[in-house]
């Protein structure tokens, strides 16, 4: 069933008529040709489609486009809108990918991890649930990034890439 919506992506407004069945991922890729979010599994299991909706990381393959009509969507491209993003630089410096297919999702997810850590959110490996501050140790990064799979298994380089930015931004001791 066709519905009129407006998607606000990476700072640009896109009026659009979509079938209600369209996911945010398909609207971005197939309709707007914004292809940095990738389709891996289409079932919430791999994280390749991760984008930020109103600043929070989500799997765009499980979000219906009609539900984000009034929301702000940021893709990995959009993170670089104001020049090089520290996460992009850290992924390059640390050689944190091989084929690169999972990378835009990893980067958006890492941006979410940093914001969540700054907000003091705990994870399942956090010993003291009541602690005020989060210390993004390697274990913390691994757990918090576990919704992003990398078929090339670049994990050993993704962890230090995220750690570098966490340290620079004061959420890693």
């Amino acid at each position, binding site marked *: 069933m066709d519905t009129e919506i407006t998607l606000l992506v990476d700072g640009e407004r896109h009026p659009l008529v979509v079938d*209600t069945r369209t996911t945010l991922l398909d609207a971005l890729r197939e309709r707007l040709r914004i292809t940095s979010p990738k389709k891996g599994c289409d079932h919430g299991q791999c994280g390749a489609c991760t984008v930020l909706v109103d600043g929070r990381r*989500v*799997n765009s393959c499980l979000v219906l486009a009609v539900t984000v009509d009034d929301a702000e969507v940021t893709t990995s491209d959009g993170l670089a809108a104001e020049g090089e993003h520290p996460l992009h630089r850290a992924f390059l410096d640390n050689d944190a990918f091989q084929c690169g297919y999972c990378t835009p999702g990893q980067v958006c997810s890492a941006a979410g991890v940093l914001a969540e850590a700054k907000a003091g959110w705990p994870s399942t490996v956090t010993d003291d649930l009541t602690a005020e501050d989060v210390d993004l140790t390697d274990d913390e990064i691994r757990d918090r990034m*576990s919704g992003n799979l990398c078929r090339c298994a670049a994990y050993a380089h993704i962890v230090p890439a995220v750690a570098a930015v966490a340290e620079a931004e004061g959420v890693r001791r």
Partner: protein
Amino acid sequence: MREFRYERATDAASAVALLAAEPEGAFLGGGTNLVDLMKLGVATPDLLVDVRRLTSAEVTDLPDGGLRIGAAVPNADLAADRRVRERFPVLSQALLAGASGQLRNRATTGGNLLQRTRCGYFTDVTRPCNKRSPGSGCGALEGVHRNHAILGQTLEGPGTCVATHPSDMAVALTALDAVVRVLGPDGEREVPIVELHRLPGDDASRDTTLRHGELITAIDLPALGMPSRYRKVRDRASFAFALVSIAAAVQVTDGMVADVRLALGGVAHKPWRATAAEEALRGRPATEESFAAAAEAELAAATPLRDNGFKVPLARNLVVRTLLQLTEGSR
């Protein structure tokens, strides 16, 4: 995917009215389970009523030290709420052990409670499954069932089903005696969490006792006042459903168990409140022997399948270890 109409109602009552008029419609929370099942052809609603904005997304204090959790509170926000972390750590831990950071940001409290089983026959429309297609049989009974139920299954007849309920959060809420607040076409009612989910009985298609068009508006948590903890055993360290999990709270006074709450996940069609174990523990010495005896009292009723017998000792050991951890220092 079947075509559907999408509606954002203006308030909870009109959402309920919209759905009452549409027998094949469904409420939409974060969509992380429903949209997935629609893609698979397992769920085929012709109307989605988006309830994410019309139930509360706030956690508020109740007068007695308890909390009211709005149905639209995202799983991530609930886990991070300071009051939950301090007063109900078992709930934070259960939420944080579930799904991924991305999914928890989108998933709601109401939707999490009503998520459907991850049984691989249920999610594959080419296979027999009494839950999805009543009367077609249960593919898992003699098939792949390593991660299926060991307690309370229906092992024969038209209701045959050996599936588990996948939610971690619901296990914690079960130990916490949560009360689910529901708005339906006939008005409001309160459902104790242990009466929300059901065993398959003679009808595996119904996961819960909710009627069509009933909307979860909030969950109430009564004050707890004792140490609590959630532990989850799974095939990998993160981002996997439970093989067996436990939500436990225990109070030890003068070396004796004064009060205890236990619920198990991954073992049954509903979060399993371990009442037999609780009874065996109350008033007993807080020792490894009592903990083991209590776990065995609960698991005496287990009817494991061909390939999931390992869950019985796993559940037993998890009960014992978790109680030992929780009572360290007070024993």
